[in-house]
């Protein structure tokens, strides 16, 4: 092994805010066909300012936005990008986020003007290719989930959850039933209870058993005429497969309740187990997780909601249909909940998901899932028994897409918390896992490598975790002072959120600097 460069550190630029670089008078943009403007103005006979001013519509001065040349824009944002970290830089094993590699070919294809330049209201005969892609994607996703139809309209997983919850709401209200309770396990993603509440449900929390799965007795105890359904992810957020899923589904169905599948954790079972075969009635998928579309620092992603009959009638409209060899949007909505967003969906991620499935096929997807599960369990084998960490809930059971380990021993014995471990990982050029989630695990480190991480990166990650624990036992204060190698050292969350200092925009900063007492 060569001795190339030791000790990681992130780029650090003294890059100011755009307000300190630019000037409202400057611009890097040339307006197209500018030379024709005078002639058009002559024809009109009046300047926009005159027309607008009299009606009280004119903005008196240009907005105070700093302008920059193209060179400066590129440098500013390139420097900022160098102080950022994504999957293309190194592992981002955030549990339940499925941060897998994003194939470059998809990025290239979606920039094709035959996609990028399409207006959503173009005549249907001019978008037959795109509709064909959406039609096939829907078919494939229905097949993968074991559902009858899917709506591609949803812009994210949470929007999918809200859709599912609203479908359940309307389904029961159409039957004249007043079911206003939704069962949600204590290990569920926070979006589940939030979505259920937005749809007007009362959330009933279901505890987990010692083995980390849903407590069926607890479900039985609360089942009644007001229970509309249950929102569940399987494998759950501990990475454990709910092995009593068929019994659970039967139990709910015999109460005429519905079972909703949160697809955030599908990656480890894609192509092996279908939610439909497990007894789920409605499913949402996060295409920016399982189907490899990039997360973009927070989005855009895409959610898809699939349903079995008779719930298909409740899916948002329009849906893509095919008649002969023509594709079209079917807007008919007899029982449907309505539209969940304007236009047709987040087309760019939808096309990327289509390309992903097209590239891999059924067998490739299945092998991908298997590899992600091998990666998880390989990591468990490496970290098992490591000082400072433990594997809560039945350590003998294999995990699927992710695993949750606890830094509780480390915290108890050294005072070094999961948060400190996360920051110490950053110092080695590794992104931290999801921390303090699920809520049922103390000092949780929730780790999901996906299939994208090579074996050596998983080994390195395990080694660094062990090294951090070693350091903590020797000198806990050192670990608490991390990170030092990132663009900035540890940031003050308390000051950031304090009612007297919270500063969400430059405008508020200026008002504060002028001495205004702004309290939130």
């Amino acid at each position, binding site marked *: 092994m060569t001795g190339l460069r030791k000790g990681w550190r992130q780029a650090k630029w003294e890059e100011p805010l755009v307000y300190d670089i630019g000037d409202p008078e400057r611009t890097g943009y040339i307006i197209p066909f500018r030379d024709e403007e005078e002639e058009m103005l002559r024809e009109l006979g009046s300047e*926009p300012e005159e027309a607008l001013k009299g009606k009280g519509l004119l903005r008196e001065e240009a907005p105070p*936005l700093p302008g*920059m040349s193209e060179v400066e824009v590129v440098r500013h944002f*390139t420097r*900022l990008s160098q102080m950022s970290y994504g999957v293309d830089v190194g592992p981002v094993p955030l549990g339940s986020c499925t941060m897998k590699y994003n194939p470059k070919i998809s990025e290239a294809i979606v920039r094709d003007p035959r996609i990028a330049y399409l207006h959503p209201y173009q005549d249907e005969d001019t978008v037959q290719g795109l509709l064909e892609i959406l039609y096939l994607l829907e078919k494939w996703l229905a097949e993968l989930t074991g559902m009858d139809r899917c709506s591609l309209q949803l812009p994210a*997983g949470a929007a999918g959850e809200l859709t599912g919850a609203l479908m359940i709401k309307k389904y029961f209200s159409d039957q004249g039933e007043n079911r206003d309770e939704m069962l949600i396990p204590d290990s569920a993603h926070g979006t589940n209870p939030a979505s259920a509440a937005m749809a007007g449900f009362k959330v009933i929390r279901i505890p987990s058993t010692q083995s980390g799965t849903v407590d069926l007795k607890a479900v039985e105890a609360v089942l009644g005429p007001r229970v509309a359904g249950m929102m569940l992810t399987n494998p759950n957020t501990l990475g454990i497969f709910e092995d009593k899923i068929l019994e659970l589904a039967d139990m709910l169905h015999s109460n005429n309740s519905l079972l909703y599948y949160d697809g955030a954790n599908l990656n480890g079972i894609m192509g092996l187990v279908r939610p439909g075969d497990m007894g789920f009635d409605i499913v949402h998928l996060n295409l920016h997780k399982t189907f490899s579309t990039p997360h973009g620092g927070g989005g855009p992603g895409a959610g898809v909601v699939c349903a079995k009959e008779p719930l298909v009638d409740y899916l948002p409209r329009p849906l893509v249909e095919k008649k002969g060899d023509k594709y079209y949007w079917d807007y008919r909505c007899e029982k449907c909940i*309505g539209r969940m967003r304007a236009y047709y969906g987040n087309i760019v991620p939808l096309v990327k998901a289509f390309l992903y499935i097209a590239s891999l096929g059924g067998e490739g997807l299945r092998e991908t899932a298997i590899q992600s599960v091998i990666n998880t369990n390989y990591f468990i084998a490496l970290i098992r028994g490591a000082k400072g960490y433990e594997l809560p809930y039945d350590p003998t059971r294999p995990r699927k897409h992710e695993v949750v380990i606890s830094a509780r021993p480390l915290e108890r014995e050294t005072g070094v918390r999961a948060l400190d471990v996360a920051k110490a990982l950053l110092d080695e050029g590794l992104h931290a896992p999801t921390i303090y989630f699920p809520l049922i695990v103390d000092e949780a480190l929730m780790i999901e490598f996906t299939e994208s991480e090579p074996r050596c990166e998983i080994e390195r990650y395990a080694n660094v975790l062990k090294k951090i624990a070693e350091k903590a036992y020797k000198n806990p204060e050192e670990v608490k002072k991390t990170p030092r190698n990132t663009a900035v050292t540890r940031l003050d969350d308390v000051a950031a959120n304090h009612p007297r200092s919270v500063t969400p925009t430059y405008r508020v900063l200026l008002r504060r600097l002028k001495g205004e007492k702004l309290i939130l």
Partner: protein
Amino acid sequence: MLPWAPSANKKDREYMLKTIGVSDALELYSDVPSKALLRKPPMVGFGRILSEWELIRMVNDILDKNKYFTSPPPFLGGGICFHYVPAVIDSVISRNEFYTAYTPYQPEINQGLLQAFFEYQSLMADLLEMDVVNVSMYDWSTAAAEAMLAALRVTRRKKVLVANNVHPEHLEVIRTWLLGKNVEIRTIGFDEETGTIKLEELERNIDNGTAAVYIESPNYFGVLEQGLEAVADIAHKNGALFVVGVEPLSLGLIRPPGSYGADIVVGDAQPLGIGLNYGGPLLGIYATRWDRKLVRQMPGRLIGLTRTVDGEEQGFVMILQTREQHIRREKATSNITSNEALLAVAAAAFLTLLGGKGLRELARTIWIRSHYAAKKLRGIGVEAPYFSSEFFKEFVARFPKPYSEIHKHIRSKSIMGGLYLGDKPPLYDKHSALFCVTEAHSKKDIDLLVTTIGEAL
């Protein structure tokens, strides 16, 4: 070889399985009920792994069935228009560190992304003259729905008033998102002559049970609402919030909502450097004035300026996260998690590329060209604009014969005309269409449109 799974090779797999202590990978699925385990891979894709070149060939055949319009660009309106996106914008958001990042839960290693988000929030706040902007909502329609939900929480009331001249899909989305809330959504009519809302109808319908008044300006017809201070006054006198939907590019030239009393502002930043892409992804704007309740009830991600623990430097973190689902669960202000953050970076790059003056010039040129197009259409006997009030970028044109006939003719000349309104609320007028003219349309494009329409009249 399995693409994008580096360890999916015989050597690594065998080693890893041995380390795990199983002989077959399927043993890792031993807890799945055998009834639910698929024996064979599902029938999706093309039955095998495709190489990149095969994928390109396959997609190319499909995409050839699409037709896009650049010469001239489409004249379609309906809340989304063809704008030219400078190449530099795509270059910025194609930076791998940005587009392959997750939400910056670890701020120290993602300062660049966080600064870009903070800059978006700040630039948008200055454009709107509002104090707080989140990063971001899905699109205009869902931002409007979330604003209604926030208003219901802030006021603890059960009724919202929505102008009937807002984008009909926005109205539909508001109705869907509020399905579970048991609230009344009442629409406020518009003046058939001017296209603006009827103030007296608003006054008649508002009461002390009203949570919000929602209007859009420009509205669905491209018409700029007038007397918005009066609307704000009516709303505020009744203790309701005034929620306004805006097209942000227009604000280079048009008065910003912060100047006439808006409490919450929503909109879509698609005109600010975001492509058409058949209508998605878009960038939902959500802003409030500085008010404890309005900010605390805000949905979505917020970035704030702070300092390092050692006090040496400044930096950025996600703030007020106790509003969000991962902490507050069923008591969260919204379930929103993934959003359209990367496009906020695009909008920030676009706004700085233009600068305040550049944005004003761009808005001005769009005003001039859209008015020129309307005037030219008037010259050949088309009612354009159909409504008498001032408009920006989009306008309704009414034709002496059904628009579908006109559309068919201009399509035959490779022009994608306006949006047919015969099957759309609130006009349902077979003779009308919604046109949009932007900086992407040259005078020649506009003249060609008018001449070609003239042939069909």
